[in-house]
């Protein structure tokens, strides 16, 4: 091993990369622009769900009930419609997601202290949204019901409203939200986006950079030179690891300064962990680049192999603990999951190496295994 030769290869790679002006622009611009676009765009607070009402009762109480939905910021009122048929048509065209059907004698039955049923039709094409909508409907309905019940009890038993309230609601639920006290979607998305951006951009840069050499044929210069396999791979990867590590710092700055996400952990630990992560994610790029000959194949394979598992299995959207067994296994095979633990841990939980050491070890192991496999697969005497 000769450090000067590694340096020479790295220097050559660096020159090549920065001379492709677009490549440089994209290498640094892409992570930043993703961070901004997704940081603003991927807010997951479901609001303004369009709904329509079929009111068969037309009484002040039915209007009061519907008004609870109109006044809520979670729903946006599309209008009253005459019947179920119109509700069907609107649901099918995606103009509304919910239809509320108030039955006849709604007011009459409630005033006679009888229970009544309200039917809601919910569009089920997007299960997550359906679930959230159901939750909102139940909450609004529950508030209405409990008011009626309290009013009824206080009237019936001749007690004050407060006493009736205790009678009707003996159990209070105190919910404490930890780590993200105001439950801001941005706070939970932005740290995960640091992971997503690094996870997709760094393997891609690496794979393209190496395959470029194969495709242009300049790799034959390497084959015939005195540079050893190890020196070539080390020198080749150095610029990409450096670029991605710098990006990790830039993304951290955007997260904390621009999106004002709190960073409760230790910055040196975060940066060190990022370098370990970058070492393992560029390893994926290295592996892909050794298996394929064309840049297009490298591109498509890296994208499919890094982007989709990251969207699906890294904890970005769905926590790993909620996945099925098979998918959990897959999740553990990709480095994204471990780094998600690290970014969310350092940003929001304020934990450090004492808690996150298993994740660091996993990433280091990952980097090591990928490097060794890459080293084994790379040969200066290619077949054909």
């Amino acid at each position: 091993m000769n450090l000067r030769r590694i340096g020479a290869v790295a220097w050559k790679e660096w020159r090549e990369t920065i001379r492709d002006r677009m490549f440089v622009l994209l290498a640094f611009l892409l992570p930043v622009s993703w961070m901004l676009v997704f940081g603003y765009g991927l807010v997951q607070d479901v609001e303004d769900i369009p709904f329509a009402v079929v009111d068969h009762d037309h009484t002040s109480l039915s209007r009061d009930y519907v008004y609870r939905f109109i006044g809520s910021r979670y729903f946006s009122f599309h209008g009253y419609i005459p019947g179920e048929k119109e509700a069907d048509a609107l649901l099918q065209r995606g103009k509304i997601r919910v239809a509320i059907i108030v039955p006849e004698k709604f007011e009459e039955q409630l005033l006679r202290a009888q229970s009544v049923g309200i039917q809601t039709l919910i569009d089920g094409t997007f299960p997550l949204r359906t679930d959230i909508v159901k939750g909102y409907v139940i909450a609004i309905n529950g508030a209405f019901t409990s008011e009626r019940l309290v009013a009824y009890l206080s009237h019936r038993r001749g007690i004050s409203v407060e006493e009736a309230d205790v009678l009707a609601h003996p159990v209070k639920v105190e919910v404490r939200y930890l780590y993200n006290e105001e439950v801001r979607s941005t706070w939970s998305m932005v740290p995960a986006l640091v992971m997503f951006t690094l996870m997709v951009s760094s393997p891609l840069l690496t794979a393209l950079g190496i395959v470029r050499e194969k495709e242009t044929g300049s790799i034959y210069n390497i084959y015939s030179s005195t540079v050893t396999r190890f020196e070539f791979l080390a020198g080749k990867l150095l610029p990409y690891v450096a670029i991605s590590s710098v990006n990790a710092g830039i993304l951290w700055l955007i997260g904390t300064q621009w999106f004002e996400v709190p960073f409760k952990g230790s910055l040196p630990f975060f940066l060190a962990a990022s370098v370990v992560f970058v070492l393992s994610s560029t390893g994926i790029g290295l592996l892909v680049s050794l298996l394929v000959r064309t840049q297009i194949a490298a591109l498509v394979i890296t994208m499919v192999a890094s982007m989709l598992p990251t969207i699906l299995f890294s904890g970005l959207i769905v926590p790993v603990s909620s996945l099925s067994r098979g998918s959990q296994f897959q999740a553990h095979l990709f480095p994204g999951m471990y780094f998600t633990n690290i970014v969310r841990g350092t940003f929001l939980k304020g934990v450090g190496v004492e808690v996150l050491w298993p994740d660091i070890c996993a990433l280091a192991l990952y980097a090591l295994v990928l490097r060794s496999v890459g080293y084994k697969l790379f040969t200066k005497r290619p077949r054909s």
Partner: protein
Amino acid sequence: MKPARPLSQRLIVWMRRLMVMTRKELLQLSRDIPIGLLLVYSFTVAVYVTGNGIRSQLHNASLLVLDNDHSFSSRELIHKFRDPFFRLEGEISDPHEGLRLLDRGRAMAVFEIPPRFHEQLVTGQPTAVQLLVDTTNSAQGLSAASYAVRIVSQFEQATVLARLGSADTSPQNFPVVESDHRVWYNPEQNDAWFESISHLLRQITIFSILLPAAALVREKERGTVEQLLVSPLTPFQIMLPKVLAMTVVILFATSVALFGIMKPAFGVPVKGSIVLFFSLTAVFVFSTAGMGLAAATLTRNQAQVGMMTLFVVAPMLLLSGLVAPMEALPPWTRHLMMLSPLRYFIEIANGILLKGSNLSVLWDSVLAMVVLGSGLFAFGVWQFRRQFE
């Protein structure tokens, strides 16, 4: 000057050139083994794994219980937290242990029942239970809290009505509004339907942008595009076969995924017309391919194409309504995504497969997609011609 040939003959020549070029593209693609393998994987194994594994709703949220009462009521309440929403991870005896396990990400929530819970409940005194939720993933945290509140209030209502009912009247005779939900198009809220369809749409999008774009840039890089340009082919005749060949391949892969995986394994219904679904898929592939080609004409090598498409593909995949519902996105994103053909194709695919919609319902989405697609395609051809003539 040559006499002009009759129209029918020119048309035959035109079609023949198209056929020959399409065949060339297909051959070239079939010899690229890594891409072939990837296509097979993406439209079979990946669709199955995603449909089988991803649960977007709260599912199996791991819950720790701190029961300070150990009574009949506390146990009854705890047992209401169960599948599919919660998974009881175990009991703890020390509040600090709960916090520590939350720190480590071993549990998502800790549910605490106070001492004398049963006693207070029976004697009609107010009491309070506590829930600690990890909200590092805000959507899931909120969802867990809302389910927990729902479970407790059901428990509460049952006990209250039972107690009051015995003193007053029968439990039905209270002025309560029962909320009855009917979920349409996916009555069981089967995640596998949604996730497998979404995944199929993601794969179609990625491949239909990347394959034609890469094919075009590869010719530019290798210089074979010069050969094509000196041939009697027009720029349109060079670009169209590339898109055509990829469309054929993608449609075939889609049918494999739909009829080989999604229908038999998950029972995804095909309520509408299958012919309509495939024709509109073809239109979608054309639209997105036009986008890829436009990107390809602006770049010189494949590495650049890759980076360019990443600017377009990733936002399209994440913001068009497959990962987060459209209603969850801020208004500017919703407006921006009017430019994404995928946004319309999601409406169309879900409409045909799940809702059984036909053209009379979907016409506006189809129109938007066609207008966008032909615009992008025309832009690509125009760029291409400008570069080489």
